[in-house]
């Protein structure tokens, strides 16, 4: 008979109370684990997407975070545009020597609520979206520069919208599917991206050249006729056999073009430090670091919320611990006699105290282990749902260091919880305990 077994028997003796207190501990720990894993997943999802292989995002002056949310996460309200000529500064102008690569984004359209990004095919060419993962196509291919009305669709958007290669879709003006936006001309899906676990899974990418030709997308230039009428008239001609006809369009003149954002990769580390200053000093646009903005968002909003959640769940664990305390403490008066008998058999004060402590540890840790499994099980069951909703795959997330703190944490808690009843056992007056009937 080990002390362990003696403690376990006492737990069995109080079957219902033990089960209930152990279960509440399990629930508490399950919630803690769930919060920890979700925290990990959210952080991972945000941070690994923040870069997307670019050092900075250049856009109209204004909210930095808004710019990042729009370009990287396809979220938030639309931002102002900047002139197309500004893009030239990066390709042929003043900033040319600092720039490794620049990709323009034109935003502001949606398809069935999924954001449409008008850009150049370069966005997917030899690009890494995390440190070592390249964009690949689950179906089809990248869109071509000279095929104005081609587009590719992110994995999640394709699945949700039921789009496949060869399908067409008509982007609508605005970022929300409110049914108010005018439906534009159709783009043909030529490729479906493989899942990346990034927000790009939720977006549709179209050729910028086609985007410019859509109604209302040309910047009005004083003294020149509105191009829309012309463009529309043109489209109506081949509205029913458009697919292979689109490439015959005339590109929109550059003075009528605008872009929303530029994804810029600096040529080298030095350039990545210089360039933002140069851009910001020039005062035409702003350069923001997506990683810094996202970290800021995290520090200000996401982290505190998650700490709050963690605090609440830890509180549940503590309350469960108090439940265990009450359960064991209540049993002490009934067990006075048994403690007396054990002492009469030669058990020391410290031994009976250890037995009570062990009960507390067993209930807390046992509940904790069950709770950990429950929490992980919950996450594993929800994992497919989360992947479907967000494109973020959790898998069986690796054991996190924060989870490992659960064990010493629970042992400390159970020691605190067990201390009071254990001291009662320690102080039991054996002669009196033996005189009492159970």
């Amino acid at each position: 008979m080990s002390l362990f077994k003696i403690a376990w028997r006492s737990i069995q003796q109080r079957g219902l109370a033990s089960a209930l207190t152990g279960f509440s501990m399990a629930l508490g720990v399950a919630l803690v684990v769930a919060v920890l894993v979700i925290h990990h997943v959210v952080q991972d999802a945000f941070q690994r997407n923040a870069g997307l292989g670019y050092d900075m995002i250049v856009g109209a002056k204004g909210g930095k975070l808004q710019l990042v949310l729009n370009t990287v996460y396809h979220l938030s309200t639309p931002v102002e545009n900047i002139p197309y000529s500004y893009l030239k500064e990066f390709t042929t102008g003043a900033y040319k020597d600092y720039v490794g690569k620049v990709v323009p984004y034109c935003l502001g359209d949606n398809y069935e609520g999924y954001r449409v990004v008008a850009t150049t095919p370069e966005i997917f060419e030899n690009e890494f979206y995390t440190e070592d993962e390249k964009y690949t196509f689950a179906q089809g291919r990248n869109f071509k520069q000279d095929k104005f009305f081609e587009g590719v669709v992110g994995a999640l958007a394709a699945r949700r919208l039921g789009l496949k290669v060869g399908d067409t879709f008509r982007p609508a003006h605005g970022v929300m599917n409110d049914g108010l936006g005018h439906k534009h001309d159709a783009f043909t899906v030529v490729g479906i991206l493989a899942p990346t676990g990034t927000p790009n899974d939720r977006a549709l990418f179209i050729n910028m050249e086609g985007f410019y030709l859509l109604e209302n997308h040309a910047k009005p230039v004083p003294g020149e006729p509105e191009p829309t009428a012309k463009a529309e008239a043109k489209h109506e001609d081949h509205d029913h056999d458009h697919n292979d006809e689109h490439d015959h369009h005339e590109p929109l003149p550059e003075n009528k073009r605008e872009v929303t954002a530029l994804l810029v990769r600096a040529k080298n580390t030095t350039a990545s430090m210089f360039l933002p200053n140069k851009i910001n000093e020039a005062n035409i646009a702003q350069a923001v670091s997506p990683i810094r903005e996202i970290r800021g968002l995290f520090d200000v909003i996401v982290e505190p919320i998650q700490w709050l959640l963690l605090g609440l769940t830890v509180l549940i664990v503590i309350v469960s611990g108090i439940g265990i305390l009450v359960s064991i403490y209540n049993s002490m008066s009934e067990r006075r006699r048994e403690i007396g008998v054990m002492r009469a058999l030669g058990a020391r004060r410290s031994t009976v105290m250890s037995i009570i402590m062990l009960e507390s540890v067993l209930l807390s840790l046992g509940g904790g282990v069950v709770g950990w499994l429950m929490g992980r099980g919950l996450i594993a069951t929800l994992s497919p749902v989360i992947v479907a909703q967000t494109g973020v795959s959790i898998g069986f997330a690796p054991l996190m260091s924060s989870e490992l703190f659960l064990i010493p944490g629970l042992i400390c808690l159970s020691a605190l919880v067990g201390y009071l009843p254990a001291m009662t056992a320690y102080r039991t007056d054996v002669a009196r305990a033996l005189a009492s009937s159970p």
Partner: protein
Amino acid sequence: MLSLKGLKKSFAEPGGGRLPVLDVPEFHLGEAEQAVLLGRSGCGKSTLLHIIAGISTPNAGSVEIDGVNIVKLDEAERDRVRAEKIGYIFQTFNLLTGFTALENVMLGMTFARGKRDEKRAKELLDRVGLAHRLKHKPSTLSVGEQQRVAVARALANRPRLLLADEPTASVDPKHQQQVIDLIRSTCREEGVAIFLVTHAPEVASQFDRVEHLEQFNRVAALA
């Protein structure tokens, strides 16, 4: 093997005074001797057994077991002497309700230093006629059977002295003799001394040595 000298014990009374219970100038028990202790209720028999077992400490005097004065030992050492040299049987509720008969016997071994000898536990239960009840919980055993388990447990660590505080007071008369016989015969076989408290004259009369607490306790003599 047991010798008491100048033993005094009194309890604090609610009024603030002290209630003297024991004043025993001298008492001896030989190796493997079997003695019975008589005395009216409340005269201090249980208190005396507690002091011998080291559960209570006297206000004065010495308790020597195998030549060791346990009064001088610290509590942990007294606990060990009790675990290894003394077996204890109470009137009722000897057994821990959550444990089987076998586990109850093993329990005594848990607190002693020696190894946990399941074979011996089984042999003892066999010896008290409960070989077929090893896995039974106390609630499924009769009081007589429970007391027999208690006898087996008291002897588990091969003690030198068995203290029995009215071990048959709750057992029906039919089984009382069975329990007494078991205690006496197993102790004789194992060379264990017995100090047994009883109220029953038919039990006391079987022992060669019968002590009346009132006769060697000066508190009782005064009262």
